[in-house]
């Protein structure tokens, strides 16, 4: 695994949760995900396009998602709260956006956030690239950042590139 593609996401999730959720995050060893489906209760998803294709998915249990959203928003938020999905989506947006800035030689666009509440979904384009899971732990519980990103263009030559991020 080429850490240069994963490190921006590690640094970003630590920075975002420390600044906006006010928790210290410890990061475990990233691993290759083998299952197709997500087992998490709540996931915030940001897609990549432009010079890279793929997505970053931030997954939580319902309990950890509620605690994270509440500490982020500064109010108590449960899954029925109108801002629950908004808060989870914005956290995913910030993690993706901050990681993106480290890819200085690639023009990557990020999508607006999507939030999935419920298990057993698949991010369709994650099938085309290896999916790397970054396990994170904080006082609120466990959070998983899943990155599937394929560089579509060689930054040096401008030609299409087949090597996948994280491969």
């Amino acid at each position, binding site marked *: 695994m080429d850490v240069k593609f994963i490190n921006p996401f590690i640094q970003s999730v630590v920075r975002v949760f420390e*600044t906006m959720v006010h928790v210290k995050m410890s990061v475990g060893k990233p691993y290759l995900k083998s299952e197709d489906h997500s087992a998490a209760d709540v996931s915030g998803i940001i897609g990549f396009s432009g010079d890279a294709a793929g997505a970053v998915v931030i997954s939580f249990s319902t309990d950890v998602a509620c605690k994270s959203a509440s500490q982020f928003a500064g109010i108590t938020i449960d899954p029925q709260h109108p*801002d629950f999905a908004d808060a989870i989506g914005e956290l995913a*947006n910030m993690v*993706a*956006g901050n990681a993106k*800035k480290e890819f*200085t030689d690639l023009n990557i666009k990020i999508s607006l956030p999507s939030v999935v509440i419920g298990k057993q979904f698949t991010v369709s384009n994650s099938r085309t690239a290896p999916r790397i899971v970054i396990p994170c732990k904080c006082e609120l519980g466990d959070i998983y950042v899943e990155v599937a990103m394929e560089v579509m263009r060689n930054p040096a030559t401008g030609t299409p590139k087949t090597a996948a991020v994280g491969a």
Partner: protein
Amino acid sequence: MKVMLVDDSRTIRNIQKNVLAQLGHTDIMEAGDGVEALKLLEHDTPSLVLIDWNMPNMDGITLVRKIREKNKTLPLIMCTTEAQKDRVIEAIKAGVNNYVVKPFNVESLAEKIAQTMNKVGSAAAPAAAQ
């Protein structure tokens, strides 16, 4: 001082509102995208606008350009996850007065707001001409 917040995330707008309230600013206008913001600006002119970059319907950079077509001096702060240097330059060229990268802490946002208002208040020339 009336402040307009333009961000598709209500959570971010609420956080910004809390920061502004701590600074004594409670007269707030809110919009979820650029189209909504332009509609509000037809009827009211705030003293400051905070603008997100990535939004549905009309993004923040387009909104900045549209505001600057009609108003060269309204203080604008881009508040976004877009942190790459070329994006910051693009926003400044479009006419923003300041730039805040998400994630932000309360202190840094408060500082940028104060900095922008002080700069605009003391500047003789319109911000877009600087």
